[in-house]
């Protein structure tokens, strides 16, 4: 047992050089990560990027191939899951179907022989406003209610670290938004460290203080949501977290505080402070909502990038805003979001337009925009599982 003494507040989580290999592939490669106590930290990435594996390593449900895991400064790498001051909210909730709600919530307290387990469990149920359903069984509750029970069952133990494995994945959109706010306020109320794994970028940005974007077993970029969004460092982050228009070309000139990039004869200026590289071939970009559409050619101004003319090839209206896709010869398709301040779309399909944005809104990446693959990569969870199964089968056949 972990001694029965648990932190009343959250603890730091530290991952040092974590590596996890499964037969046939590497899920996580050399990961270093520190999550400060009391923060709401989100691991964001596509399926198969290793985020769930990271969570399972911290919970102790998987063993790391190399590296150390420290919770509150204490090395827990070699301890069993039931010895770690960590609790998990599972994606499938994993409520025990043969126990009532109150028995489910009190389960962890009873195992640790905490006094007044039932009273504390009721308290946790009151926190998620489900105390009136304490005598029911999990299968009699709706998905959202089960989710809240799973949360209560975890936080009632006051773990130093709470792990959330896509806990809102099975809920419908409206309920999900509501639960996001609720989770966030509960975290602030109890002051525990939350580690939240999700593939939903909006969810990660709304809830977390710090977001780490993961791709192919590595953390691509880590920071506050606003920073990640405004200044993505890699093409993956620029496209996974929202949308981006990316252009690649050689740097043709440098002034005191900016670089200018030649993209197929067009000049795009980016502030030096917002560019990762200042020479050679670089990829620069701008967010679609920072772009402005013009139907007549505007006068070139200093401090503004201007591209065009091009033609609008697609207009899609989505209530608050309209998305235009503008094809500019040599530059490909550019996405522009415009708020619907007036009535209806500004321009129709086929209109000749120019696109401009302020230099300070641009950013320069440290890597190149990948060519868009025709088919999605085969590194998602399902195909990894299949691969793993095949490898095991052949291994067993050899035996």
């Amino acid at each position, binding site marked *: 047992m972990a001694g029965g003494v648990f932190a009343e507040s959250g603890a730091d989580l530290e991952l040092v050089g974590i590596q996890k290999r499964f037969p046939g592939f590497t899920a996580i490669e050399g990961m270093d990560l520190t999550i400060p106590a009391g923060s709401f930290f989100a691991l964001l990435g596509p399926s198969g990027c290793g985020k769930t594996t990271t969570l399972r390593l911290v*919970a102790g*449900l998987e063993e790391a191939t190399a590296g150390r895991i420290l919770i509150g400064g204490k090395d827990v790498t070699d301890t069993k899951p*039931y010895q770690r001051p960590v609790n998990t909210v599972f994606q499938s909730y*994993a409520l025990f179907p043969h126990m009532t709600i109150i028995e489910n919530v009190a389960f*962890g307290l009873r*195992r640790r022989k905490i006094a007044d387990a039932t009273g504390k469990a009721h308290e946790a149920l009151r926190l998620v406003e489900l105390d009136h359903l304490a005598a029911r069984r999990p299968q*009699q509750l709706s998905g959202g209610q089960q989710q809240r029970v799973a949360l209560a069952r975890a936080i009632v*133990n006051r773990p130093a670290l709470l792990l959330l494995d896509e806990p809102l994945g099975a809920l419908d959109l409206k309920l999900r938004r509501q639960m996001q706010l609720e989770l966030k306020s509960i975290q602030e109320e109890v002051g525990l460290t939350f580690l939240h794994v999700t593939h939903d970028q909006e969810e990660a940005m709304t809830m977390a203080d710090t977001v780490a974007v993961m791709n192919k077993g590595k953390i691509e970029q880590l920071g506050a949501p606003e920073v990640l969004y405004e200044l993505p460092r890699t093409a993956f982050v620029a496209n996974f977290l929202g949308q981006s228009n990316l252009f690649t070309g050689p740097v043709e000139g440098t002034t005191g505080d900016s670089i200018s990039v030649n993209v197929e004869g067009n000049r795009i200026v980016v502030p030096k402070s917002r560019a990762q590289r200042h020479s050679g071939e670089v990829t620069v970009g701008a967010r679609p909502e920072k772009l402005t559409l013009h139907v007549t050619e505007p006068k070139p101004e200093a401090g503004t990038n201007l591209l065009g003319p091009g033609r609008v090839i697609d207009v899609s209206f989505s209530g608050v805003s309209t998305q235009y896709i503008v094809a500019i010869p040599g530059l490909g398709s550019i996405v522009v979001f415009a708020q619907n301040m007036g009535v209806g779309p500004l321009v129709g399909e086929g209109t000749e337009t120019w696109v401009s944005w302020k230099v300070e809104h641009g950013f320069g990446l440290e890597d190149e925009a990948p060519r868009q693959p025709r088919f999605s990569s085969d590194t998602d969870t399902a195909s990894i599982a299949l691969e793993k199964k095949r490898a*095991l089968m052949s291994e067993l056949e050899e035996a």
Partner: protein
Amino acid sequence: MTLQEARALGTVMETPAPRPSRARFSLGRWLLPVYSALALIFLLVPIVYTFVFSFNDSLKSNISWRGFTLDKWTNVCAAQGVCEAFGNSILIGVIATLAATTLGTAIAIALVRYRFRFRTGVNLLLFLPMATPEVVLGAGLAAEFLGLGADMGLVTIILAHTMFCISFVVVTVKARVTSLDPALEEAGRDLYASPGQVFWRITFPLLLPGIVAAALLSFALSFDDFIITNFNSGTTDTFPKFIYVSAARGVPAEANVIASAVFILAIVLVLAQQISAAARRKRLAKVQ
């Protein structure tokens, strides 16, 4: 005649009949109930016969009706050897069931949850006792016991029964383990339960319906078995063996009493289970 009725009759009509005949219509209507009734009677005749003749005031053989009596029910153990054989059958059934259920459940969990060498081989071997003719199994085992110089008796019967019951337990429990979400056990580990606590508080209660089904099946198979028992029992009598042996000179009515009692007990258990399940469904529906 509607299409459904035509199908029910099993007739394939080349051309649709312009005016359906009444005779065919009533045939379609009566065929199924009459057929079902005949099938049920066919099934029930031996059981009813056994039950009725348990009240026969028989002397030595219990073939012709000599008059009604309750003596055989009140003095079941009057016939020589019948109660001893019945007791043996129960004892063998209980021990073999306990052993087979324990071992089989462990095997089923291992086969589903873990990957190990010869896993496919073990799966295949488990099917063999179910696929092999009982005579072959019985004779083979008897040869082994003889070779080992073992005394044929209760112990050899229990070993033989445990052996063939394990396969059925594994198949039954495995289905249950497969449907058990591994996240539930992980949640248990995550909530500070030691491996033992995870098994007894989560895995075992969730597997229990499958384990109970497997145990009932084992007991029925063991209690019923004649062929394998006959090869490996020596002079020990079990209930099926007793009846087989006494059939030559007439089965005593006491055997009918025991058979009827077992049948009634089984029916009562099934009914009780059905009633309690219905009550639970009602209660669940009320809560919701």
